């Protein structure tokens, strides 16, 4: 039975009034509706966006953007798909930055904590300016992570950087030419591949499958007709 849900409406003055705001995209002024995301503002302004859009869900890091709000000298960073525009905002997307990624065979590393210094010799040269941490749209304490990597605390780094979307905004700001996200990626992979206990139960299961432990059950299930299978399925709760 339909009931009246007219009471259950969320107040959204911003939707009702649909205020237009003035923003600057790469130095050019546009009028766009207040509160839409930075990406949507670019589309609204008539711009084709190919580079700079990825998952649109805040996970892929494609839409790394620099922005400044009205009268504030501070240039901040954001993910354009996760940030709303406001009046007087000025922004530009970060171009692809030519950071150097070290190449390695993760499984063949002999001494991953030492190898860090061969692969990324710049990592210990951090000058503590903290610009990387300030640049991180994921709020990771990037500077702390770089130091922990250098001191061999790979586990902490892997935990701290689980939120890292690899947007790379920590890299252009680094005065020691470190690419912290790439350092952390190496460290996290090394942590997983070399310093994490192998799950014994997983090997047991792989062996069970190989040895045919489930073969009888498979035979039974796969020989059932449609009706029998449906009945069997109903018993699995």
């Amino acid at each position: 039975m339909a009931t009246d849900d007219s009471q259950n409406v969320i107040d959204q003055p911003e939707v009702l009034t649909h205020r237009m705001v003035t923003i600057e995209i790469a130095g050019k002024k546009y009028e766009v509706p207040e509160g839409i995301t930075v990406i949507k503002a670019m589309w609204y302004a008539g711009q084709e966006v190919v580079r700079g859009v990825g998952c649109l869900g805040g996970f892929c890091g494609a839409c790394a953007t620099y922005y400044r709000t009205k009268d504030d000298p501070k240039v901040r960073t954001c993910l354009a798909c996760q940030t709303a525009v406001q009046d007087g905002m000025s922004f530009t997307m970060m171009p692809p930055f030519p950071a150097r990624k070290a190449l390695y065979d993760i499984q063949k590393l002999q001494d991953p904590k030492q190898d860090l210094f061969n692969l990324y010799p710049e990592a210990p040269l951090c000058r503590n300016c903290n610009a990387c941490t300030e640049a991180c749209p994921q709020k990771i304490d990037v500077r702390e992570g770089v130091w922990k990597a250098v001191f061999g605390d790979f586990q902490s780094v892997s935990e701290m950087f689980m939120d890292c979307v690899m947007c790379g905004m920590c890299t252009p700001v680094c005065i020691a030419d470190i690419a912290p996200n790439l350092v952390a990626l190496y460290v996290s992979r090394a942590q997983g591949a070399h310093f994490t206990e192998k799950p014994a139960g997983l090997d047991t299961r792989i062996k069970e499958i190989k040895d045919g432990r489930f073969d009888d059950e498979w035979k039974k299930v796969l020989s059932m007709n449609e009706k029998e299978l449906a009945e069997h399925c109903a018993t699995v709760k």
Partner: protein
Amino acid sequence: MDIHALQQIVHQTRDARRKQTIPKFSPADRDQLIHKYHPDWRASAYRPIRFGPNEGDKTVVELATLLEGDSPIGSTVDLTPHHTTDVLIIGGGGAGCAAALHAHGAGAKTILATKLRLGDSNSVMAQGGMQISVAPEDSPVTHFIDTLKGGHMQNDHDLLKVMVEEGPSIAKWLIELGVLFDRQADGNLHVKKGGGSSKPRLLTCSDYTGLEIMRVLKDEVINQKIQLLEFCAAVELLSDDDGRCTGAILKDLDNHQYVVVAAKSVILATGGIGRLHIQGFPTSNHYGATGDGLCLSYRMGAKLDHIDTFQYHPSGAVYPEQLIGALVTEGIRSEGGQLVNAKGERFVNELDTRDVVSSSIIRECEEGRGIRTMSGRVGVWLDTPLLDAEHGPGTVEKHFPAMMLQFERFGIDISKDPVLIYPTLHYQNGGVKIDTNSETNVKNLFVAGEASGGLHGRNRLMGNSLLDLMVFGKRSGLTAASRTGSVTQGKLTLKHVERFRAEAKKHGNVSGVISPMILPAYTRKVG
């Protein structure tokens, strides 16, 4: 009303709801609910495909139009290859990366082309986890049964058996590459229970499972020096005189030039269709989810399976405006988050399959028990603070850091206030029909991941997508690589396009669109 005032009912009813158990629907009730409310059953949104391998089969209008669409390639285009390779992989998400790594590892010369950057995909957003039967009380057979039930018994048994049996070795492979799955105190893999599953089976990396796997796979693709063609969208396949697939034409989106690639095998790992916004739904999908692989393989004569069924994820954000369509992970419901209507009542077992939960949310909203937003949307509450109440303060923040951060950016603390949600277009249940090697009925044309069909039946079980990507990415890559020695590079022709055009002409060239779409047309026409 102020949102906080509307949320009060959720806070007020929390303690009473905690004690409540809601039984799952009986099969008959479940079917009735789905037939009445699930978007797959909205007949007016569907029409038969006029011609081609699935002539007469019904699918949504948006997809039917694209499938019948014309190729952008004229008959005069120069087919001299710019690249020649053993295996060409199209798509840079989970399935594409897994295919590339296995094909390359087996010694084949491999090129991976993707229309955005390597890794820009739905895979990177997968939060809920990956179903693999690693727990002692679980088994691949139970995984098989759960998936079959979720898929309304329509799943391809052979594909499904392969997937569940290869799951554990996939987990091992990923761990060896450095993927950090959550662990138990004893070092074994931690498993969570997912909707529609009888046993806890979800491997997770907090709520960043897809991101963690993709960070590692992307890094590995680069470390292995696999040739990448980024911002190169596939716009047509190539065939020889016998109709076998021999390569593809890509369009470089930076300079708008065509790039012709000759390949002994082609693997399409192009993902789903969310950005077609079927039936006007918002979507949780990435920017490039426009069903390109379906159009390309259809023109080549590949048969599609289950393309009339789509998954609407129960919990897409409805508020704030900026997050409309974005996913609120199912993990919240796995940990006990309840769905609550405007009257403060629960109305479904939150861990039922996605089609059931979505249908019941739509029912609540259509029957006037939803909460409306001023932009005309409607939804129900997902009681996220319940997790902190149930498992202790800090639970939401610790287990769902990605969700916390996403809402925090808009001033919402989901550990304190419930989230407004409504189903969002999430997944294409069907796709190009494949065999257990991931090959289509077109020789040397493989399809892996969401673009393929059959495995998931009519409703994919949560957590099975990441595993699908890895298993069939691997199988397509290995099979394609194994043909390197026996297959000689075939001629590069557009005969399949000529055949398709002749058929379209017979049917009056009614589609009127060029496909694939490549990217959705979000840019406002100014002036």
